[in-house]
């Protein structure tokens, strides 16, 4: 189906169903209950799930397949964001030209950076990309202020040209839309005590992610993807067979740059502003974290990793002392205080500590990420089942 093997098609189907039904799946707890704070079914967070999913899928095409660790991917996200805001300012609030331009600009930008950076490999490549990204950040922050808005960032203003829409009226907010349908249009459905929110912007981003995921499966299974894997496993041997690996790695770099640009454009489409901090190297680090945490080199891993990090970033960082007291209220007083004292540094503002620890644990024990963890657990169960089956098969023979 769709040029996919049966197994991939099944995976694709699962992803499609999960993303389309996300407003239901992410809201398992009824409104007003104690557990409602674990609900992730609000538009802002769901949009981030899929957008960062796109980003991680793109990064995975580069890192997962070729093994080139780029530490500057946020630069492409930032460039894409700026390009999208400029389209809003110059043409109209329709997101189609904005997203198209953000992908194209990010592609061109990554072509230039990739062409230079890919002359070196290994740690040098990581540092070159890091240097380029930091340079873009520094430039966006200072000299390029007319183009990027500098410290205040870039957002649509009343003085914009807006060729197709005409100037904004006083007090009118610029809302990105797709042919008249506003991104922030939401429809709330209440079933019993549950409230499910369907957001138009989320579905636009979700369709984009499904497309991105489909393309990434096709790349993984194509001869081109095979070539990229060959580069990862042994580049020297590849060049001995007379193949020049540079065009392949460059293509992978540009593709993943375009994915990042798409993610940047979508971020702007959901919330029309862009700032230089999107290009800072910690943002690049976060992309790496997502991909590794989920499982680099696997199809579904990066999406899982992006969802995982964004979910915990939002949920765990909201937990405060009062919430903890609520959780542990059933414990005896002394133990309650001890528990709160132990847990408190890891939640709320300490979320990054949890993330860092988790990331270290994953790199140390599960280099294949969450996907590998899942496979290990599945293997344990399968072994049990197959040994049961064996017992069943051998008994009649006696």
């Amino acid at each position, binding site marked *: 189906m769709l040029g996919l093997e049966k197994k991939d098609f099944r995976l694709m189907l699962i992803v499609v169903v999960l993303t389309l039904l996300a407003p239901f799946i992410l809201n398992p707890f009824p409104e007003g209950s104690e557990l409602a704070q674990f609900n992730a079914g609000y538009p802002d967070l769901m949009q981030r799930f899929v957008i960062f999913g796109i980003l991680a899928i793109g990064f995975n095409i580069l890192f997962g397949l070729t*093994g080139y*660790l780029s530490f500057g991917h946020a630069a492409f996200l930032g460039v894409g964001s700026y390009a999208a805001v400029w389209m809003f300012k110059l043409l109209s609030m329709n997101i189609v030209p904005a997203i198209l331009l953000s992908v194209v600009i990010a592609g061109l930008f990554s072509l230039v950076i990739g062409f*230079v950076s890919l*002359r*070196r*490999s*290994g*740690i*040098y490549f*990581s*540092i*070159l990309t*890091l*240097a*380029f990204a*930091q*340079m873009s950040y*520094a*430039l966006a*922050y*200072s*000299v*390029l202020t007319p183009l990027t808005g500098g410290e205040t960032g870039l957002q649509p203003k009343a003085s914009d040209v807006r060729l197709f829409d005409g100037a904004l009226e006083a007090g009118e907010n610029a809302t990105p839309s797709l042919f008249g349908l506003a991104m922030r249009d939401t429809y709330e459905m209440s079933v019993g005590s549950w409230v499910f929110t369907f957001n138009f912007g989320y579905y636009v981003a979700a369709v984009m992610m499904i497309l991105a995921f489909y393309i990434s499966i096709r790349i993984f299974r194509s001869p081109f993807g095979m070539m990229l894997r060959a580069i990862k496993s042994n*580049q*020297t041997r590849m060049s001995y067979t007379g193949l020049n690996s540079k065009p392949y790695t460059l293509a992978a770099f540009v593709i993943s740059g375009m994915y990042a640009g798409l993610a940047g454009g979508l971020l702007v489409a959901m919330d029309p502003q862009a700032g230089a901090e999107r290009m800072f*190297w*910690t943002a690049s*680090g976060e992309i*790496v974290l997502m991909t*590794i945490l989920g499982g680099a080199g696997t199809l579904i891993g990066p999406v899982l990793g992006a969802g995982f990090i964004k979910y915990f970033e939002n949920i765990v960082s909201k937990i405060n002392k009062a919430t903890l007291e609520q959780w542990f209220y059933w414990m005896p007083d002394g133990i309650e205080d001890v528990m709160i004292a132990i847990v408190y*540094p890891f939640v709320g503002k*300490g979320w*990054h*500590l949890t*993330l*860092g*620890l988790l*990331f*270290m644990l994953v*790199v*140390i024990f599960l*280099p294949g990420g969450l996907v590998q963890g899942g496979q290990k657990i599945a293997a344990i169960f399968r072994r049990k089942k197959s040994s049961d089956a064996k017992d069943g098969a051998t008994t009649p023979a006696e």
Partner: protein
Amino acid sequence: MDQIILQILNGLDKGSAYALIALGLTLIFGTLGVVNFAHGALFMMGSFVAVTVSKLLTLSHKVVDETRTDFLGNPLQVDVPYIYDWFGEAAGNVMIDWAVPISILFAIPIMIGIGFAMERGLIKHFYKRPHADQILVTFGLAIVLQEVIKYFYGANPIPTPAPEAFTGSFDFGVAFGFDPNAIIYPYWRLVYFFFSVVVIGAVFAFLQFTTFGMVVRAGMADRETVGLLGIDIDKRFTIMFGIAAAVAGLAGVMYTPILSPNYHMGMDFLVLSFVVVVVGGMGSLPGAVLAGFLLGVLESFASMPWVIDIAPGINQIIIYLVAIIILLTRPRGLMGRKGVMED
């Protein structure tokens, strides 16, 4: 002319910090072959040793001072540092004033200990893993260390002043025969520069003139052969890791009066130090030091007003720009050795 001297001087203190961090990074890389992304965190922890020491020294208890009264006529309570009780007021004041230099004494054993713990506890297990894994795990460690510091010390910078004697500025202009006030340079930065020269000299002397250093250098050149000669090279490399950590820590301790420590200062310096290491040549100790000072001075030249007029923003990107040019034209860096980190 005076402008040029001033810019060179300005570049030296930042360059010293780059050189010290890059030296430690190169030591770790040259001996253990590990790319340590947590090295900036070590620099940051060093500066927080200074913060802790100066806090401990001013730790005080309340004493009722009978001779003075507050506006209601009650006896006034005065904070008296414990250190006054032990050493008397005059000596106590001197010690509080000299908190930063005193921290050096504490920082060396603490940082060596942290270095040992890091190498034995974590990095040891990553020698056989790919470089990407080493980068990732040390990156994770850097996040953890930085968040731990943030938890205990808060997110705001903590000003830690230099001793009273070094607060002023030195008028270089007079010394070199220029007009007074043409070249003014804070004393502490001068101290920092000399301090870093001493530390760098000590590390090089240690490697060059001691038997231990000789073995380490031999191990850097050919680890296997040294191992075959019956020398426990791993143990020595662990000690080198401790020394590298101490160098980064000392760089941090002495930098506190120049830049108030905050929890993410390590990361800010780390990115630049990596660039410095790459420019200097991966695995080359003199290269790291040279590139550190060179880039520090270049950066300060690039922030001169007339340079910014010609090429705006150049001061922000000069280091990266130089790194890119060097990497593309001299892939091994300024003084890189053959066969190091070449796949």
